[in-house]
Every structure is written in structure tokens, then in C-alpha cells.
């Protein structure tokens, strides 16, 4: 059995009387992309920063490749790479200086190839404050991976990036994963988390609400599947009550939208009804519940989809 590269056991973090994280336990395996999700104040940042050695836990244990971030922060230095959410570099440092500066502290050669790779060519001599938000984030990522860490922490890596750069960054994350890098991805972008993560943990009020693969997480919960239908003569408007397994129905932008807990009978009945009434089907879409739907269900249990 493969030993987990990250072990979080009964982790607790408090600020005065406020309990930010309580009895949090999870494991991350080598080479995984592990999504850490949760609403603001759920305890993601406290967990990440404690794993990165920036905060001291008040209880439990944290281990990265067997190293305790509190006991042995210097041992952790070359093991992890961190792309911080904002700033993190002096305004007047140039792209080239930043790569040399951090490489020197990691005792590795500066990786100027990352400048081109991350679309920063022509910006080698530009100062940090002269870069756009997207360029700053790309530089921050370059610095985080320049020493080839075993574990990479990405906090909102694609926030503020254009589509092309976002795609390139996802491509790079997959490459890093193939090379064996473990990635901890903290994001509010559910589509990104669902697409990129092997496993996900959703935190809520400082505790682990759910963990599993994106498919496992979306498969639990209310499991209502969304069916959107549009026909030429809008025949469905006259007969909704007889459709089997439909729990909810709405009409929007010319589409009848059904939430079904048994997709087969519902779709069959819809098609049969359209044919019987001699209407023409224009569009029919079936969408399983997304991670975002499930996330909202977990974090706002009182609200329906």
C-alpha cells in the first residue's frame, strides 16, 4: 500500500476563542491532485497555511512526506512549493531577479525556461508591479515549481487569468501530476475543481463535510438529474403531471426543465408524449448534478437546487 504523502490527523486550529478548524483528518496520496473546497471561513486557509508551516496547529498532527511542518520547517523548504493567493513579491523585483533570488535560497539553478513556458517572454526585465494580475500569478506559479517540489500548494491559481492562460495552467498541472507532483488545489471555481481533482474534500465550519472523487461526491445527495426539453409546439406545457419520477418542474427561455430522480422513465415518457402528440423535438439535454450543485447542497442545506 502506498504511503500517503500528506497526513492530517485530528488537526485543530484556534484564534483566541474562535475555532477555525476542529478534528480535521484526511490523507493525500503521491501524485494526486487534491481539491480543498469550502465557503469563506470554512478553514481552508488555516489548513493550508499550517501545512505550509506558516501557522502553528493547536492540536492534532500534520505530516508532509513524514516531515512535521512545525518541528522541521527547514526540511520542508525544498519539499513544497507554494503559490500564494496574492502578492508575495516586492514591487520592484524583476522577473529574472525573482527566479534567481528564490532559486538561490532553494540551492537550485534558476529555471528561465519557465518564463517562456508561462507566457512571460519579453517580461524578463519587467518589475513585479509592471506585470498584469495574470502575469503576476504566472510568475508566482513559476517560482512555486522552479525547485521541482514534491508537493505543490495552489491557492486560487486561475483567479484573474484569461481563458488561454487558464488552459495552459491546467495543462501544466496535468504535466506536473504525470511527473509525480502532488497538488493541493484550493479554489472557489467548482468547474476547475471537478475537472482537475482526483479527490476532493469539502470543509464546512472548520470540519470535513465530505471527501471523495468528484464523481462520488456528485453521486451522493439528492441525486436529482436535470432534463431540459424544447419542442416546436410546446406540447409539454399541457401535460406535466403525468411524467414519472419528476420532483420539480420549471419553464425558462422556451425550455421545460424537469428534475428527476429516475432519469430513464422520465426521458422515455417525455419522448413518448412528444411523439404521441405529433410535436417535434428541437432540443433535449440531460445534466447530472454538478459539483457546484452538490457543493451548494452541502453548504446551504436549507436551499433547493
Amino acid at each position, binding site marked *: 500500500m502506498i504511503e500517503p504523502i500528506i497526513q492530517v490527523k485530528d488537526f485543530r486550529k484556534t484564534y483566541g476563542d474562535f475555532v477555525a478548524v476542529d478534528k480535521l483528518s484526511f490523507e493525500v496520496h503521491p501524485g494526486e491532485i487534491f481539491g480543498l473546497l469550502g465557503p469563506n471561513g470554512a478553514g481552508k486557509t488555516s489548513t493550508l497555511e499550517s501545512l505550509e508551516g*506558516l501557522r502553528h496547529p493547536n492540536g492534532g498532527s500534520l505530516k508532509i512526506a513524514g516531515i512535521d511542518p512545525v518541528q522541521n520547517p527547514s526540511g520542508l523548504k525544498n519539499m513544497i512549493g507554494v503559490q*500564494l493567493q496574492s502578492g508575495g*513579491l516586492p514591487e520592484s523585483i524583476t522577473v529574472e531577479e525573482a527566479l*534567481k533570488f*528564490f532559486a538561490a535560497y*532553494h*540551492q537550485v539553478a534558476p529555471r528561465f525556461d519557465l518564463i517562456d513556458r508561462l507566457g512571460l517572454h519579453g517580461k524578463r526585465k519587467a*518589475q513585479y508591479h509592471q506585470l498584469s494580475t495574470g502575469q503576476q500569478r504566472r510568475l508566482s506559479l513559476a517560482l512555486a515549481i522552479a525547485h521541482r517540489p514534491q508537493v505543490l500548494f495552489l491557492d486560487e491559481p486561475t483567479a484573474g487569468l484569461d481563458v488561454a492562460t487558464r488552459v495552459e495552467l491546467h495543462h501544466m498541472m496535468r504535466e506536473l501530476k504525470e511527473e509525480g507532483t502532488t497538488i493541493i488545489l484550493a479554489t472557489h471555481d467548482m468547474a476547475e475543481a471537478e475537472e482537475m481533482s482526483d479527490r476532493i474534500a469539502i470543509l464546512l465550519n472548520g470540519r470535513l463535510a465530505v471527501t471523495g472523487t468528484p464523481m462520488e461526491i456528485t453521486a451522493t445527495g439528492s441525486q436529482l438529474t436535470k432534463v431540459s426539453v424544447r419542442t416546436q409546439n410546446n406540447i409539454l406545457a399541457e401535460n406535466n403531471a403525468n411524467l414519472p419520477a419528476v420532483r420539480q418542474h420549471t419553464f425558462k427561455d422556451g425550455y421545460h426543465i424537469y428534475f428527476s430522480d429516475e432519469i430513464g422513465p422520465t426521458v422515455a415518457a417525455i419522448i413518448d408524449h412528444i411523439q404521441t402528440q405529433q410535436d417535434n423535438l428541437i432540443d433535449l439535454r440531460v445534466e447530472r448534478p454538478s459539483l457546484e450543485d452538490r457543493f451548494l447542497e452541502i453548504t446551504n442545506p436549507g436551499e433547493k437546487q
Partner: protein
Amino acid sequence: MNAFVHHFAFMFRSGIRNKTLLMMNYLFPLGFYLMMGLIMAGINPFFKEVTVPAMTTFAVLAATLLGIPDPLVNAREQGIFRSYKVNGVPAFSILLIPILTTMLHLAIIATIIVTTAPLLFDAPAPTNMLNFIIVFVSMAFASSGLSVLFGVISSSSRLTVLWSQIIFLPSMMIGGLMFPLSMLPETAQKAAMLFPATHAMNAFNGLAMGTAGDFSPWGSILTLILGGLVALALAVYLFRWGSHNADKKRTPLLAGLVLLPYVAAIFLF
């Protein structure tokens, strides 16, 4: 060592590249020096005699007290120190390197003042250059250490201004830069010994300019070096990686201990 050199080189270049630091390191001290040389040297004979030490001391005060604390506070507030921490940059380097780079900038300014003041304003040059360098390094170290400490204990840029002005303004007024210390009432003379600038002027006069100091000039050197060491030690002890780092509850009131060498000097010298 390689990392320290890269860090030092970047910080030194920042002192010229960053407009605020360029102003505090070069433009403000040199502009003030030229203005004072042109105006004061003609109307105040005392000032002409002390142009070189007074303007060197002024340059040190401006570059350190007005130039060092704010970037430290901003770096902490903007998460730069946290980024440094996860990449293995030691706290000691973060605090020591600004001191060393500022001292290097100041050495350039001091050289300009020492070489041009006799030519431009007929001001006397130092009679003992080695002692001048010793006093200059001691003063630059003491004032830089104090400035780093202000940067560490200040929670905002506004507070750095307050702390810096508590030292900067009295130093200018009663530190012996504009008129002799001996012209002050005895109590004010004692109070003036709480400021590094007073010790610097006393040591410059007594050891490097061929005139007499008001009290023990080597005592002043000792006070400045001890003051710098105590300030740096306190800065390292009170250093925080981030603005919300509640893991380290050490009261900034401890920073008051930095006055100890100066208080002791009042009674000893």
C-alpha cells in the same frame, strides 16, 4: 552565501530603483545638503565648521529612519515575508540586509559630502579619515538598527512615521547638527544623549574633525554600537512573518529596551 549575495544585490538595486527609497537615500539628503550649504554656511559660522559631520548625520537619519521602516511594514502586510518563509529566507536576512544595503548607499552619500563640501562651501574636511569612517559606520548601524526595529513593531505605515519622527525631529533640533550641544541647558543636553545623532556629532567632532567633543567620544562610539546591536536583537526577537500571526504574542513594549545603552550613556559619559 549565494542566496545572501542575490538578496543583498536585489535590495541594493531596490534602493535606487524604488522612487521613495531613491528619494530618501540620495535626493533628499543631497538636496538638503546643497540647500543648507548654500544658505546656512553663509549666515551661521558654526554650521560651516560642522557641515561635513552634520550633513553626513542628516543623510544617515533620512535614509534610515525615513527609508527603512515603511518597506518592512509593507512587505509584512502584503504577504512578502510569508512568501519568503515558505521559500526558506531566514528572518535574520530579512532584517540584516536592509541595514547593510542602506549603509552602502550612505557610504556613497558620505563620500560625496566629504569630497564636495570643502570645494563648494569651504567647509573643513575630516582631519582623521579612519576615525570618520568608524563614527560613520557606528552611526549608520545604530540608526539602521533602530529603523528596522520601528519597521518590526509598527502595525501600519502611519505608525512608522510617528516612531521615526520621535527620533528624527529632536535629533535635528538638539542633536548638535544646527548649533553646538553646549548651547543647550544641561537637562536638554542630557535628554539629547538619548538620540544617536547626538552621539554621532560628539564622536565626529571629538575623533574626526580635529575639534573637542562635549563628552567622551569613544563612549559615544560604544553607545552607538551597543544601541545598534540591542535594536537588531530586539527586531529579530519581535519579528513577525505576517500581520495576522497570532502565534507570536510578544509585546512591542519590549522595544523600549533599545533605549538602555543611551540611558546608560547619560550616567556614564
